[in-house]
């Protein structure tokens, strides 16, 4: 056992160094930045367009005192609904002799108003590209109504602060579980696919003979798997750290504003890391086994697509547990080793209690060992041509 661990460590150390100290690893770390940059760029453009199109301007033609009251009323509405949701008001000086003034304001390119509100506060009138049911018209009605009321008539609302059951907590937790499951899936699909080609280097460089003569094949598999896991965790630490920092900077309240999981944030984050490792080890062990059978890079590329689809299927199976963690299909997905980590992470978000996770982790670890042993044995039998072939591959003698 100690020899296996030591040998696996030698393999893992070389693979980890070869991966992390290569120039390609910098691009690997920067990988998630590209979609973020693109998203940010298009988001900014979209937001600018949305700001310009979704926040109409209404010109107020009237006295300065009327405009002040309209403006105060509008600000009260904005306080309740949000600044971006309420029409913008601009003041245009009234010329009593000019009866066609409002229409000219409407067509003036310097004002760029969607509607013009004119007349006195008692008899206001709106002209513009509006129907009676238009939200802008509704907002203008509210603004006019509020502007007409004297301030003293606004009834004060007395308030007492008290804790109440948060509405839709189970839905929020399901959302947290779903988010955790999706992150787990995407990280695994991005990272564990690399394991398909892990043994190609040794096979194409013929160094496999030197390794196979010195250490058990199991050690080679374990070493490679853990080296890539370590490299992936390094990448994730960088990405998650950057992501959390971004959320903290951008979102009000930071990461603590996200819906709280059932087991609490510290335990959930610990499970997130642990289940990622398990998910990676389980799927990685399968991919390493499949990839080890390939003899060329072309074969590995051909295998990539079915393997990705298989992962999507497993994710689909795992996602049946969201919202109903104790349903028969959710329990089946929790027992099936390849979907178990994703299901259990979602469960951690929705259901309190830790012992089920201890049992699940032990179950998953058992399967990692089983798959690795099976993979190493298959590699020895089919690639190194050692020992008798498995019975189901034996051809019947021609009689």
């Amino acid at each position, binding site marked *: 056992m100690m020899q296996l661990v030591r040998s696996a460590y030698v393999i893992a150390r070389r693979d980890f160094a070869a991966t992390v100290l290569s120039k390609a690893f910098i691009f690997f770390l920067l990988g998630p930045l590209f979609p973020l940059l693109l998203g940010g760029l298009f988001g900014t453009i979209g937001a600018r367009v949305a700001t310009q199109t979704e926040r109409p301007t209404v010109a107020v033609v009237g006295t300065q005192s009327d405009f002040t009251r309209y403006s105060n009323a509008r600000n009260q509405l904005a306080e309740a609904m949000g600044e971006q949701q309420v029409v913008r008001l601009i003041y245009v000086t009234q010329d009593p002799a000019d009866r066609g003034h409002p229409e000219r304001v409407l067509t003036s390119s310097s004002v760029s108003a969607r509607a013009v509100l004119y007349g006195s506060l008692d008899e206001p009138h709106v002209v513009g590209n509006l129907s009676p049911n238009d939200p802008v018209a509704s907002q203008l009605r509210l603004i006019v109504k509020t502007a007409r009321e004297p301030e003293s008539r606004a009834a004060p609302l007395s308030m007492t602060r008290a804790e109440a059951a948060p509405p839709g907590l189970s839905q929020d937790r399901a959302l947290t579980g779903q988010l955790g499951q999706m992150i787990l899936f995407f990280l695994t699909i991005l990272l564990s696919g690399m394991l398909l080609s892990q043994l190609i280097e040794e096979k194409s*460089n013929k*160094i496999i*003979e030197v*390794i196979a*003569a*010195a250490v058990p094949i199991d050690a080679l598999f374990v070493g490679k798997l853990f080296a890539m896991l370590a490299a992936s965790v390094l990448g994730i630490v960088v990405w998650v750290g950057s992501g959390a920092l971004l959320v903290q900077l951008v979102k009000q309240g930071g990461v603590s504003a996200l819906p709280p999981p059932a087991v609490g944030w510290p335990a959930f984050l610990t499970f997130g890391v642990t289940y990622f490792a398990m998910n990676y080890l389980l799927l990685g062990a399968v991919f390493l086994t499949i990839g080890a059978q390939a003899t060329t890079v072309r074969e590995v590329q051909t295998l990539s697509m079915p393997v990705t689809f298989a992962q999507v299927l497993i994710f689909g199976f795992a996602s049946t547990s969201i919202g109903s963690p104790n349903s028969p299909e959710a329990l089946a997905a929790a027992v099936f080793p390849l979907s178990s980590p994703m299901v259990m992470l979602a469960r951690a978000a929705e259901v309190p209690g830790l012992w089920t996770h201890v049992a699940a982790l032990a179950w998953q670890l058992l399967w990692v060992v089983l798959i690795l042993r099976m993979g190493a044995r298959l590699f020895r039998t089919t690639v190194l041509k050692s020992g008798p072939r498995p019975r189901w591959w034996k051809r019947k003698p021609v009689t």
Partner: protein
Amino acid sequence: MLRQAQHERVHEGFAVEAVDLVKEFGETRAVDGVSLAVPSGSIFGLLGPNGAGKTTTLRILLGIIDPSSGTRRVLGHERPLEAAREVGYLPEERGLYPSMHARDAIAFVGALRGLPLREGRRRADELLEEHGLGEWARRPIRNLSKGMAQTVQLLGTIIHGPRLIVLDEPFSGLDAINQARLEELIRRQAREGATIIFSTHVIAHAERLCERIAIIAQGRVAFEGSVDEARGRLRPIVRLRTRSQDGSWRSAIPAAARLHNGEWVFELPEGGPEPLLKALIDGEAGIETLAIERPGLHDAFVAIAGDAAAEAMGHQEPSE
């Protein structure tokens, strides 16, 4: 204590023993009942034509593959990987990580065999310096010539001071100078107490280096013994040139003798040189030149491997 006892037991006897090894790949029987005993501290040559089963035999002995049947014992261990720390192996198909520096590649192979990485790097620097590759120590393998890369891999094979060194076709791809260096390296390792097994189909290396050899043909051991014993399988060759063309002396020359450019060439008859000489002198053959040559290992190899192939063909015929 146990390790010491085992060490002594192995040194008293054989470093490697194999009994009736068989390896089948589907319908093909690559190794067909190979039995070997390699004395500890010796240089042992595994000779055979291409495809004879040498590499497969070595891979079985090293534990890379398991035999279909038969047993092997390496440095006292029935499971060869248990002795991996005391074994060095240079495979026929050379392999190194191209991006690794030369010293790291050597240290990595040492680390696989249990040598701490730091110590491995220190020894690698020494060995590279000793073999004239000191300035290449910190350069990637991909920048080295083929010969240099082979030397690096060979140094990786011995970095951890193994007691058993297995070299599969170590001379292939090397120029004459590097072949001579490798021969010297093998001799030095043997002087330091290591057991060396190497396979080759170039007989000259085995003739110069080996104390014992095994000739493998058609997956079987056709011969195992010393180089002299192999040569002894063939009768000495007589080359005779006479003034007389005919006479009673002709009866002393075997019927299978060939006359080539006026020179008779034939195997020395059973009775040895005296009866032949007597017959030539009494028959007034007029001896111009007479040479009795001891056959080389090459001749013995060709004869033994050829006989084995013929025998194997004979075995196959009834079933066809």
